[in-house]
């Protein structure tokens, strides 16, 4: 036992002679910083998101890192799915199912110059984004992928946060076709 004590004491003194306390803190800092950066690498997030998404983009379980504000809700990266994070206050037909994308109108429609605004949480990177819900106008209802979500939506007396209004209203041809969700920027905390 005394021999074991001597070996440990010898190793500790040797280590102390070769290294400083500052270098120890530096190594520890690198380890901690590295471990914090790993979850932010895009490959890691995407793989986890894909693993969480069910077959053909159906809602899946949310990645562990994405839990928080939207905990318990289905998670998907599928932009034709109503549960896609950017659609948190959309009301209408998803343009991504009508010949457009989640942020662009289908061919031959007219973009609406006025809009309502939402704040949606992206579980993929943990950020809140301000999005504008623009309507695509000038053709009759697309009818595909009906989606009505109302997170932080307010009644008509606050028009900028309301989705009960036809936001093609200011277009020369105000017929409503479908809706998109356009990222404007990261929401300030």
């Amino acid at each position, binding site marked *: 036992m005394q021999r074991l004590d001597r070996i440990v004491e010898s190793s500790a003194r040797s280590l102390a002679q070769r290294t400083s306390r500052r270098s120890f803190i530096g190594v520890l800092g690198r380890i901690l910083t590295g471990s914090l950066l790993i979850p932010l690498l895009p490959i890691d997030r995407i793989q986890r998101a894909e693993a969480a998404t069910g077959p053909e983009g159906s809602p899946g379980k949310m990645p562990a890192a994405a839990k928080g504000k939207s905990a318990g809700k289905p998670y998907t990266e599928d932009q034709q799915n109503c549960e896609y994070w950017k659609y*948190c*206050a959309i009301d209408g037909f998803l343009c991504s199912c009508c010949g457009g994308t989640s942020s662009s109108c289908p061919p031959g429609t007219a973009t609406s110059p*006025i809009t309502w605004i939402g704040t949606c949480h992206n579980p993929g990177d943990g950020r809140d984004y301000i999005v504008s819900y623009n309507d695509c106008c*000038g*053709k*009759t*209802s697309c*009818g595909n992928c*009906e989606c*009505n*979500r*109302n*997170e*932080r*939506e*307010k*009644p*008509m*007396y*606050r*028009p900028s946060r309301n989705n*009960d*209004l*036809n936001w*093609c*209203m*200011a277009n*020369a*041809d*105000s*017929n*409503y076709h479908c809706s998109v969700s356009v990222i404007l920027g990261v929401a300030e905390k």
Partner: protein
Amino acid sequence: MRSFQAWAALLAMMTSGWAAASEPLPPDQFGMEPLPARTPHWIYVVDSAFMNETDSRVRVYDADTHGHLGQIDAGFFPGVTLSPDRNTMAVGTTYFARGGHGERTDVVEFTDMTTLAIDGEIVLPAKRAQATPTYFNLGYSSDGRFLYAAYITPAASFGVLDPAARKVLGEIDTAGCVLVIPWGPDHVSSICDSGRLLTVTLDAHGNEASRALSDMFFDVETDPLFVQGIPTDQGYTFLSFLGQVHEVAFSGTEPVFRPPWSLLSAAEAGHWRPGGQQLGAIQRRLGRLYVTMHRGGEGSHKKGGTEIWVFDLSTHRRIARWPVAALKLGPVSALQVSQDEAPLLFLASDNPAAVATVDALTGQLRHTDTNLGQTPWQILNP
């Protein structure tokens, strides 16, 4: 075999003989069915036709006979209201010159509710609020002299119309407050983002005589008010997202707010919420409030009711909970109650698209009709 053929020949001779002996059907008289006299058990179902919104319509339905009596075309994002004598339906709507596209025409069309024929119109400036149906998109003054149309461009104002002369009288800016709540012969209130009501008083010509802003009676940040008011004897009752009941009297010189009360017990608060498109109705004779309720939270305020809760308005006590699943109906997005002595409750769901008729005293199902439109978001009494 020969015997079978003989019997078959005899049978054929007998049947052809009988056919020849009976009288032929008389020629049909092609014409149009008259509309029967309306009863308190009729309803007007506003189908917003969400899958093809340029084709909204109002269906006339008799809940006693389960009869589909007729239809009123309602165009695009209609606002629907009845004249004080209930003999005229005014539909504020939009049409496009080429069906789904083309030049926009905003118009109020008047339908004679004894014939269902359109008998006039007023063309509006292209400002009409194109919004989901409420009582306050379009409304008559209590004497029928004026008709008011809510405008949102998104700047908010309202048009003052003369329904008798079929013309627009003018437009009144509402400083960001929206919709038209007509009361008395000359008052119009609008709901403001500040949690107040703006009330404009008109002169005899439909011009603004004065305006007044009420005290704040709700907070849009903490507990917004649904804009779908429920008619009462004195005015309208409004529900909030979190289940507060705001009773507003519109019968004096200015709106009077009674102290709000809650639909929810302490244990239910935060778990149950009102929701839908037309989320409440009051049977005035019984003093009962019917509300579509669901389990929900932030953002669930447009979910239809999985239960109908019934309240006694004099005691604020809940007297019944009726689960919708027992009626084989989807979440209820709109409801209405008849005002007669044998009241019926009408419950509409989107999925499946159906309207159920229920005994308003017991909650017992009488009938379910699945042919009253794809998105029946508002039901009016005749």
